[in-house]
């Protein structure tokens, strides 16, 4: 019964988790205020013999207060979220030297095309592997998401990455991993009867291991 966010290994994930917990504590406070108030009112003002309700149509002062406070809180939250969102998602802000991959979602499998030794996509040494995504640690990764048939969603929980793969569009997704390890790509958008099994393995290598793996793949073809 553990309800915790999985450990986060990406830089963007830090912002996401931070915002998550800010909102969590804000809503927790509001939750206690509202639910506690309701319970207290029920016990304090439940109908007793001879009790008379207080005749009032409300107070404009209170209305202004509990309109201004949410507006203020949401304005700050909105501005902060908006700027962070622009950093994470605006393709113009992506680092130009990031390692580019092409990930194509197809009904119930992920085909990942690697740039090969020369780190450039579209060159002769590119190769595609089914359901296996290998990339080096501590390096900016940009995945060019595509889909062949329906809408899938590229989701790596531990790296806080999620973006739909829409057929007919190429959507760049920028993330990185600050720790080597084994993760999984899951499909988060209903894509047919095999949606629940559309997963691939993600292996984050130390830089040296990645080079070695690349070499081994080159000879295997």
């Amino acid at each position, binding site marked *: 019964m553990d309800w915790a966010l999985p450990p986060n290994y990406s830089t963007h994930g830090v912002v996401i988790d931070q915002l998550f917990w800010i909102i969590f504590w804000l809503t927790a406070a509001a939750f206690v205020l509202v639910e506690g108030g309701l319970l207290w009112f029920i016990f304090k003002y439940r109908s007793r013999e001879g009790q008379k309700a207080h005749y009032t149509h409300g107070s404009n002062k209170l209305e202004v207060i509990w309109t201004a406070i949410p507006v203020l809180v949401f304005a700050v939250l909105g501005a902060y979220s908006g700027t962070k969102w622009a950093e994470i998602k605006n393709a113009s802000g992506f680092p130009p030297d990031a390692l580019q991959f092409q990930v194509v979602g197809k009904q119930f499998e992920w085909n990942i095309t690697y740039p090969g030794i020369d780190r450039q996509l579209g060159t002769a040494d590119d190769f*595609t592997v089914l359901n296996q995504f290998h990339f080096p640690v501590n390096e900016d990764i940009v995945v060019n998401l595509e889909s062949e048939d329906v809408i899938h969603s590229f989701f790596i929980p531990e790296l806080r990455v999620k973006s739909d793969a829409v057929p007919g569009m190429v959507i760049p997704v920028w993330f990185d991993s600050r720790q080597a390890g084994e993760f999984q790509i899951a499909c988060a958008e209903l894509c*047919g009867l*095999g949606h629940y*099994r559309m997963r691939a393995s993600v292996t984050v290598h130390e830089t040296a291991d990645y080079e070695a793996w690349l070499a081994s793949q080159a000879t295997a*073809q």
Partner: protein
Amino acid sequence: MRLDLRNSSAAMFVALGIAACGGGGDAGSSGGGDTGGGAAPPAATIDPATVGTISGMINFAGDAPAMRAVDMSGEPDCAAAYTGGGPMTQSVLASGGGLANVFVYLSGGVSGAPAASGAVTLNQENCRYAPHVLGAQAGQDIQITNSDNLLHNINASPTTNRGFNISQPRAGITSTQKFASAEVMVPVRCDVHGWMGAYIGVVDHPYFAVSGANGSFRIANVPAGTYTATAWHEEYGEMTGSVTVTAGGSADLSFDYSASMAGADVPLGEPLVVGHDGAHTHAGQ
């Protein structure tokens, strides 16, 4: 006013419920009709005197292209079943001068074929279709079974027949399908495992066969007469030949394929992108 207002509304509610389920219920039987098999008609009695057999070889000249390994690492329980070099693609299997998986059927001269009886089975084992190529008569039951304890979906995409896209998430699940009209080579694929592919040849009569590992095939109980026969292979295309069957005798028929015929025009139902079979996955090697 008050009392009968309630009775009528309650009555209307019950009627609605029955109508919807009723409407649903009887549609169910017709809807499911397609998958449930009708009672198979009694097999026509075959008079042994008037029938013969056709047997022969599919010869293959030249060396077959080396089959590539299939990357099954995504499915560990299937990969474990293949010791040695691991699973290989199945599109061209040739050994000792013979070509396997060639679908041979009588394409001309057949009249008054007996109705379909019995069932053909297509099994899924270790993330492979067994058999890779099979024949079925129009209207004959095709029993699809799953002996892997993981999800396979059977996506048949014919052109003239109605296709189906059903799933079998566990071992032991069987589903019966049938095709109404003849269609040579209905491609079948599994979307969960891109490398899986099979072909079902649907013909109007029971006179068909698939060549074995050494290229030999045998069609039994063929009424006497002269026929034209066609051989179909997924890489090397189609060839035809004529054969005469004598009552009680055995006619010989052979076809000669050669490696040079690779890339021939292969008549299929819907153009199938089953090319996962190694070629697609390792683009650019």
